[in-house]
């Protein structure tokens, strides 16, 4: 019984608020009027809340400081930063397939380097020129998967090949624009 009473109160308190805020339908207003006619408690609630709202609504708006607009306009940059277009390599690596391929390739390269370094004397590392631009010898391999790439700056394929226990990533990409390489 108490729960029912509480739910009724909630319903009418919502109607009281809605009426004060002018967000009540004609049917709801009629329902509220009927309730208020028989409830001194309801009328007291209405008057109290209407008084609070009247006080709030009666306050004058605060005027911002006179110089605020000037301060704000002076605080913003002269021009907005344009949307940054990604560079060639950023754009290339932003392609999901290439991102995974590059990560995989880096892992393979690292693993092979570790394996190879165990067979190379420390003296070999004194002369690193041989490591720069090293191209692996062609090996017989089987194509496992190929991803086609056709982006704004670059097109071609990235292929995953297997050769025995080796996995090879084969990049066959062509830039659509000239590339300047600076050493």
């Amino acid at each position: 019984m108490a729960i029912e009473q509480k739910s009724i109160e909630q319903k009418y308190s919502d109607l009281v608020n809605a009426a004060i805020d002018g967000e009540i339908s004609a049917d709801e207003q009629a329902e509220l009027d009927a309730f208020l006619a028989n409830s001194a408690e309801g009328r007291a609630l209405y008057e109290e809340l209407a008084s609070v709202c009247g006080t709030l609504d009666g306050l004058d708006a605060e005027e911002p400081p006179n110089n605020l607009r000037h301060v704000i306009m002076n605080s913003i940059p002269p021009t907005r930063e344009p949307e940054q277009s990604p560079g060639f390599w950023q754009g290339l690596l932003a392609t999901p397939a290439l991102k995974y391929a590059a990560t995989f390739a880096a892992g393979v390269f690292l693993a092979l380097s570790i394996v190879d370094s165990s067979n190379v004397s420390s003296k070999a590392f004194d002369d690193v020129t041989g490591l720069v631009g090293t191209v692996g010898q062609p090996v017989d391999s089987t194509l496992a998967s190929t991803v086609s790439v056709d982006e704004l700056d670059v097109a071609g394929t990235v292929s995953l090949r297997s050769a025995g226990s080796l996995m090879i990533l084969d990049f066959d990409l062509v830039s659509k624009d000239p590339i300047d390489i600076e050493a």
Partner: protein
Amino acid sequence: MSKTDDTQLIERCRSGDRKAFEALLVEYEKPVFNAAFRMLNNRDDAQDVTQTVFLKVFENIDQFDPSRRFFSWIYRIALNESINWLGKKNRLEPLTVETAFEGKGPEQELESARVAANVQAALQTIKSDYRSVVVLKHFLGCSYTEISQVLEIPEKKVKSRLYTARQQLKDALNGRT
């Protein structure tokens, strides 16, 4: 300002038109400042928050979703920045009447100023979630639907928060008169 007008200004802002940004500033400076002032009870803090709000609008205008109303976006930023400011300044403790008047006797105040100070002090006694709905309803003139859009909460919750806030304000004001 209509949604169409705002949308056109926002489009021009996105292409770097400072005049368009200034037009938005002229339109929304006063409500944003008022929202901050009612939340913070301090004009200097409200000025700083207003400045931060417009800087954020300028920097993030590309992220504004044009399917929404601009006012709901900027009011939301204003309320969030005010709440963040409260956290930073550790002003969550309710103000007392004495703090609000700060040495000025009632006889030195006009009646309207006394009421305004009382209301402002009472506002600081309620939680910021409740204060936000009061600010949107009574100082920015938003409807239930608009408050729901700004705060991204259901209308039912708007109504219940408003009801609770008013009850708490009534109690706070009665305790001060």
